[in-house]
């Protein structure tokens, strides 16, 4: 551990939370339909697209209409991406003549990118043509992110309304968010990345002879443009197999810092935007505080774990050293630890170090962050609606304790909303633990694992947690490109995404119809330290109760095994 390491972690988190305010203020303007500085350039494009979309894009939608539009858009996105991946061999911009994907891999990949998961059962450098990367994957990186952010608008309007009905218009939200938020941010970030050395070319291979005379094939492509939205949209699907550890995706400590700020900044910004639209700025600040606090603790815990001496190094006679297996020299333990916390705290899933080679506690904390429901700060949009669900459950629990009907942001929280909130929350243990339990006894599933014992179990649990949480990172030793894994992971991702979104939208539909109440003396304030503590408690207890038994079989057992081994040489 070094003081620079701690300072880097602190600085990263402070910058990320700080940038959430300008981003959130801008996002609120976009969702409210107000003017933005880039209007002269972007308004005509926006008008043209909405005109093409037709009259459906001009009406106010109920929760059912909004949800139907959202699902239709995602189904269409899935069909297009699936077609592009299957037909890759016949399409242009494919200098290496890569063939189309197998049906199950194309299905898995299309679901993965549409659900903002970006689980990758393939290696980008040997599977995807430049056209697939651009027209297929990059597009869904934008649109799955915009889908999540659109819901921020719908949910915020539900809380702002007084006996309302409409939640806004999905088409307008998704187009405006794509054009006025995601595109300009991506352009700026892509330019910065390209200057720093991230390739941006239509070539795909460069054959060279190394200094020692060996043959080496460099893989390049339109990386910077995809890398930018991959981080900003909390997608996380790497251009290359090694993802953000690859020097062409993340060449320097500076690009690494930018990548981290990008993958959490907008997710925090969604909370800020929600607060502004719903007229609850102080309450939004409390949500940000709870999320950031838990994230900071997790980052510190991973850093502590990764700087401990590991048995393999001790056995070889090395004195205490950071666990550098699966880490890059330019990042070291600190930048790898904070990246791991931020990518699993958000549902991003980009990795700049291999989580499978982390110490049991380091990898275990990353896994637990996914299982907490991807709300610290979560994916763009999905983190916000996830944390609002947690806030509703918190005021409900508090209401039970004092015997009053709970309220949140001026809306009474009653049985109907709590049912929908619990329906959403419970989809995660059902998908994650259900599939893990089934896979744990099926040889066809276990065949894909690269390890046995508690580490193998963690690999399995991490995979389904990553899918259900729409994260996309992996204990990457797993070979998940088989029909069993491709199909069950796709199911896992669909349940985790739309099995969560639909109840949340129904909840928004119930909330929008309620009268907006002025706070009374009996209202539990939801903007102070007490509420932050309560919210953190609910998040940890809910996540802990659901997943602790499973974690005990994986990372915790492995940790005690490691203690037994590292203690011996020291004695």
């Amino acid at each position, binding site marked *: 551990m070094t003081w620079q390491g701690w300072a880097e972690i602190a600085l990263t988190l402070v910058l990320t939370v700080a940038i959430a305010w300008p981003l959130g203020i801008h996002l609120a303007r976009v969702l409210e339909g107000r003017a933005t500085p880039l209007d002269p350039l972007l308004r005509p494009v926006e008008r043209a697209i909405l005109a093409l979309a037709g009259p459906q894009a001009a009406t106010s939608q109920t929760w059912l209409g909004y949800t139907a539009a959202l699902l239709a858009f995602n189904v269409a996105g899935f069909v297009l991406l699936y077609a592009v991946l299957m037909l890759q061999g016949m399409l242009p911009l494919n200098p290496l003549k890569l063939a189309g994907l197998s049906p199950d891999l194309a299905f898995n990949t299309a679901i993965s990118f549409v659900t903002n998961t970006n689980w990758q059962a393939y290696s980008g450098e040997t599977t995807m043509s430049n056209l697939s990367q651009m027209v297929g994957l990059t597009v869904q990186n934008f649109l799955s992110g915009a889908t999540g952010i659109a819901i921020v608008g719908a949910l915020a309007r539900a809380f702002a309304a007084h006996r309302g009905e409409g939640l806004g218009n999905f088409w307008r939200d998704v187009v405006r968010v794509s054009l006025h938020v995601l595109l300009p941010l*991506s352009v700026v970030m892509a330019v910065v990345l390209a200057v720093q050395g991230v390739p941006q070319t239509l070539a795909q291979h460069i054959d060279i002879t190394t200094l020692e005379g060996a043959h080496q094939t460099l893989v390049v492509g339109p990386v910077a443009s995809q890398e930018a939205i991959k981080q900003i949209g909390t997608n996380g699907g790497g251009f290359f197999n090694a993802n953000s550890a690859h020097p062409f995706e993340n060449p320097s400590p500076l690009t690494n810092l930018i990548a981290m700020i990008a993958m959490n900044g907008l997710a925090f910004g969604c909370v800020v935007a929600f607060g502004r639209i719903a007229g609850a700025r102080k309450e939004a600040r409390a949500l940000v505080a709870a999320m950031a606090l838990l994230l900071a603790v997790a980052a510190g815990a991973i850093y502590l774990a990764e700087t401990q001496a590991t048995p393999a190094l001790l056995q070889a006679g090395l004195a205490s050293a950071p666990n550098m297996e699966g880490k890059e020299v330019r990042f070291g333990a600190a930048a790898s630890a904070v990246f791991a916390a931020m990518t699993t705290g958000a549902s991003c899933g980009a990795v700049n170090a291999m989580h499978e080679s982390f110490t049991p506690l380091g990898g275990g904390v990353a896994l637990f962050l996914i299982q907490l429901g991807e709300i610290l700060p979560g994916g763009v949009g999905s983190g916000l609606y996830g944390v609002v669900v947690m806030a509703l459950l918190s005021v409900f629990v508090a209401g039970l304790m004092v015997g009053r009907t709970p309220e949140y942001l001026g809306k009474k929280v009653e049985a109907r909303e709590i049912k929908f909130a619990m329906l959403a929350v419970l989809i995660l243990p059902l998908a994650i633990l259900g599939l893990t339990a089934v896979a744990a006894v099926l040889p066809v599933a276990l065949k894909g694992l690269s390890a046995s014992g508690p580490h193998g179990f963690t690999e399995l649990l991490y995979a389904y947690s990553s899918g259900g949480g729409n994260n996309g990172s992996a204990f990457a030793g797993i070979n998940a490109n088989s029909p069993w894994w491709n199909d069950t992971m796709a199911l896992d991702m669909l349940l985790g995404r739309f099995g969560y979104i639909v109840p949340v939208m129904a909840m928004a539909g119930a909330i929008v119809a309620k009268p907006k109440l002025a706070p009374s003396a009996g209202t539990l304030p939801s903007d102070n330290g007490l509420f932050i503590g309560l919210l953190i408690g609910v998040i940890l207890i809910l996540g802990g109760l659901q997943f602790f038994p499973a974690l005990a079989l994986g990372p915790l057992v492995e940790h005690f095994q490691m203690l037994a081994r590292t203690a011996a040489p020291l004695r």
Partner: protein
Amino acid sequence: MLNQLRPAVMSLLALTLLLGLAYPLAMTGLAQAVVPNAANGSLVRVGGRVVGSRLIGQMFTRPDYLQGRPSAAGDGYDPTQSGGSNLGPLDPKLADRIAKSAAALGGDRRTLPADAVTTSASGLDPDISPEFARRQVARIAAARHMDAAAVQALIDQHTEGRFAGLIGEPRVNVLAVNLALDQRFRTGKPQS
């Protein structure tokens, strides 16, 4: 949901043209015009011949060259198979591999830096720690029949500190040092 078909298809197609074609192509044009070297993979040329990328590690085995970390990418530093070993911390294969690497490097094990015996996440790590570079100075100097201080000075020149004093870790770009060694001492071949 059927009445949402037209907006779904039309907006998807329009956004695909904009975000999937116009955006990456515009970025490509811009990057190629403004920073062509960086946009094309930061290639390094010697006498007009491309010998590598500044950002991508390559395999060095000769004693007169600075050597990089062990690599799990294919047979070592294969950019078509980027990735780490993905061995768990308690995997016996990891302990065996690390013990072998440590034995091959020789010297005092206790002071050996961790990056010298571990594989990176990408398998393409272009850097090593300054400590690992320092340990190789005597070998390089002997192989090239030159002064150890001169080799160390060259390594120091190519050592990059933390960004802004805080961000990332100090590091030595292996390819850059080896190019400088060859340039300064004409031939990379042992001069005996």
